[in-house]
């Protein structure tokens, strides 16, 4: 009885202590929840001063050529910061890049521009797309304020599974949300957890997640193509889903980790299908060189990008942008612009032009093939090229001189080869198909005109249409390319091949 009374007496105290603990605890919990909602996981941004751009560089870049028949010029950065590795550009260097682009009057492209371009809308002149791969912190901390100051736009390709992890390396969802809200950014996909390498065989050789049939150690085999498809599709779909889950628009572009997009033929096709059915385009990377999107890239649904590494100075940047700036076909002057030629090995070519005639002498028993304005004509699909092709002496003199259109479009390119008293027209690069051939009246030169449209290529020799080759493809930008010339001398006494009056309209 006494015990009962004592216990009853104790009860109010226990209740009071519980209240003392729980009530402020609940208040604190609510306070923390409110703070978590109001104060986001965002690091402070750092402002970076940009040095004044070199006026000579600005003038050169501002004078770069433009054309409606052009692919987007795309730059890829990774992290911005002071890590000191090759793929981290310092804030100062990045600020200098952006300042130069801004001062030269170039505009920055959005993902919407890219999507419109894929459907046929030409890009604005003097435009470049700024992209960042991985979603590293420096993009928010350093790059965003620099872009904001210049009123520039950019796209960040996010590895969604790494967001907010490896602190402080990757950006947080709060920072991404803030970036999206600024209107300055497109947030795009870079896999969910696929930016890794997977074992490719029993020896433990590791290869990129997306382009490798993964080795399954428990079963001592590599996965089947079906398992491969399921694995990559699950990752790409989850990557997309993560954006939606975090209140961001679904991404429309996809960047391949390590730029890896090709494996064996079957896997490559599977990957291509999975990417193109989920995204408007896949983004590739090329370090240390000028590169632009070709019709072959577009055939696979891809867009080429130029990696910006820590060694890229404003001079190098300007050189690459100018080298990638598109040329209007009518503005091309292939015979006076002798520096614009390149060998089939992509090396600068020395071109011998005498009195308006290009002399192509590969030497006896040899070939030569030169391409004009390779990076500046990759999206030409409407132009007419004409030339006087020679020089021929007699039938079977062993000289062949050629003119090719849609170069770089391995499915559609059309090559006209003229030899004494005969012509020969083939289509395709890797496995050429003869589409026309026939005799010609004897003459030292023939006047050839090749008219290219997205629908067909019409070849005319001395006023006679000798071939009409259909090139129409279901998608834009999958039929395109510039011109090249070629020559062959069979014998020591074969006449020297020449091309005169080479003009493009």
């Amino acid at each position, binding site marked *: 009885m006494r015990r009962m009374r004592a216990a009853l*007496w*104790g009860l109010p*105290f*226990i209740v*009071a*202590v519980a209240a*003392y*603990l729980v009530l*402020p*605890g609940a208040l*604190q*919990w609510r*306070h*923390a*929840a409110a*703070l*978590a909602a109001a*104060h986001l*996981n965002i690091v402070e941004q750092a402002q970076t001063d940009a040095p004044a751009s070199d006026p000579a560089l600005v003038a050169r870049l501002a004078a770069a050529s433009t054309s409606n028949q052009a692919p987007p010029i795309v730059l890829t950065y990774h992290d911005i910061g002071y890590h000191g590795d090759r793929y981290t550009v310092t804030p100062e260097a990045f600020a200098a890049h952006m300042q130069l682009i801004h001062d030269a009057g170039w505009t920055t492209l959005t993902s919407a521009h890219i999507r419109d371009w894929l459907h046929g809308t030409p890009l604005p002149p003097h435009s470049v797309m700024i992209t960042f791969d991985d979603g590293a912190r420096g993009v928010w901390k350093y790059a965003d304020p620099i872009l904001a100051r210049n009123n520039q736009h950019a796209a960040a390709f996010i590895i969604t599974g790494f967001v907010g992890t490896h602190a402080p390396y990757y950006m947080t969802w709060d920072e991404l949300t803030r970036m999206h809200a600024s209107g300055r950014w497109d947030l795009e996909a870079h896999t969910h957890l696929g930016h890794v390498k997977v074992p490719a065989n029993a020896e433990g050789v590791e290869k990129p997640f997306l382009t490798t049939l993964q080795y399954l150690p428990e079963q001592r085999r590599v996965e089947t193509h079906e398992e491969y498809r399921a694995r990559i599709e699950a990752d790409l779909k989850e990557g997309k889903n993560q954006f939606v889950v975090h209140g961001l628009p679904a991404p429309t572009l996809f960047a391949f980790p390590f730029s890896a997009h090709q494996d064996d033929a079957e896997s490559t096709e599977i990957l291509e299908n999975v990417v193109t059915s989920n995204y408007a385009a896949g983004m590739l990377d090329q370090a240390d060189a000028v590169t632009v999107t070709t019709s072959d890239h577009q055939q696979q649904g891809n867009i080429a990008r130029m990696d910006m590494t820590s060694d890229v100075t404003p001079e190098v940047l300007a050189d690459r942008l100018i080298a990638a700036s598109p040329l209007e076909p009518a503005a091309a002057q292939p015979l006076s612009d002798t520096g614009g030629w390149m060998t089939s090995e992509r090396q600068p070519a020395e071109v011998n032009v005498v009195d308006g005639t290009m002399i192509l002498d590969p030497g006896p028993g040899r070939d030569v093939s030169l391409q004009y304005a390779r990076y500046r004509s990759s999206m030409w699909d409407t132009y007419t090229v004409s030339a006087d092709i020679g020089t021929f002496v007699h039938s079977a003199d062993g000289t062949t001189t050629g003119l090719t259109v849609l170069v770089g479009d391995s499915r559609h390119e059309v090559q006209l080869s003229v030899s004494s008293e005969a012509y020969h027209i083939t289509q395709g690069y890797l496995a050429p198909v003869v589409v026309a051939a026939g005799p010609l009246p004897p003459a030292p030169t023939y006047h050839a005109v090749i008219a290219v449209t997205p629908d067909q290529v019409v070849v005319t020799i001395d006023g006679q249409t000798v071939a009409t080759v259909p090139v129409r493809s279901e998608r834009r930008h999958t039929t395109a390319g510039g011109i090249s010339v070629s020559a062959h001398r069979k014998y020591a006494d074969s006449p020297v091949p020449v091309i005169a009056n080479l003009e493009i309209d």
Partner: protein
Amino acid sequence: MTLLAAPPPRHAEPHTPHRASENTLRAVLLVALIVIVLTICVQKIDSFDNLRRDPVWAVYSIVVTTFIFSRFVLAWLYRVPPPSASITYRPSVAIIVPAYNEPDIARTLHACLGADYPADRLRVVVVDDKSTDDTLQRINEVASAHPGLVVIESERNRGKRHAMATGIAAAGDAEILVFIDSDSRVRAGAVKRLVRYFADPTVGAVAGHTDVANKDVNILTRMQSMQYYIAFRIYKSAEALFGAVMCCSGCFSGYRRAAVEPVLDAWLNQRFLGQPSTFGDDRSLTNFLLPHWRVLYAPDAQAYTNVPERLAQFLRQQLRWKKSWLREAPRAARAVLHKNPLAVLMFGLSLVLPLLAPQVVLRAFVVQPHFISQLPYWYFGGVAAMAIIYGLYYRLHKPDKRWYLGIFFTMFYTIVLVLQLPYAMATIRDSKWGTR
């Protein structure tokens, strides 16, 4: 003579070796102390931004740090009065020792009897609270050698408070009453030094300085030695600056009879929620005096006491102290209002901050991990920093081997005792001693 005949102390005071390396070590420790304090200050300034982000907790963090540091500053400002002013002050003194089942009673009494004070003005009173063992017999053995020792035998066990009152009644006309716990031991000069503070007629009570006698037994007693040293040297000094020492501990404290007599009945018959108060006698008596008298601390009046050597015993003692702290808090609050506003502020903080502790623990271990995935390293860092500061301060003043062990235990103790406070609240009516 008799002092020599006394059995050797169970826990001898270590002598303090003073080697050249000692100075080097002290210099290093001092630098370490300064570095830690500066680091904390820099960190606080660096996180001023939190004031905007999370003002409630940012203010708490700054207040806690300031509170801890400010006690050191206030303690440093408190100075022992120069002896010249009070050198001739020799009031009559009664040392009162309440005893209950105390094996060390003889040693305690010998120390009291050996006090360096004019014999005609000193009386030693021992009250046996009806011990169930041979305590009374050992008291009488001492008394046979010291006829001056006044021995009072209680007819029945009535608790420490009544034993103390009985002692007061037997103290005759002594102006100053010095209470010494039956397991405490005073240095020969301690009583004289303690009494000196009463030369100021506004002083009603003075707490002596008590160190841990059995500190070398284990890590628990080492930790308590550190705690005692800080509690007396820092906390009591800081309070004494305003004449507001909140607890004249039972181990060794002096009271002016004129201050105690008017409140004696109220103190004796004090009840808590209808039950007689059976512990926290020292804190309670101090609270009776505080509104009208200055209460000081005598860092130079040295006594030693034994502390619990087993964890369970230690926790029971801590629980008792926590309960008496809680029970006396409202009275202490009223009493301190008569003091300097800064003393009121410091008292308020010393009350509120421990009461907030469960919320701090909840925040560090549950809320922060949940909302910002932050493990409680700030909490552990803060507790560790405080333990290290106390440890370094302790070591700088007391050359003690293995002093650093106390630091680790202080961290453990800080966290465990936070959980004890709610338990003390829930069982506050329960007046059992647990041990005695």
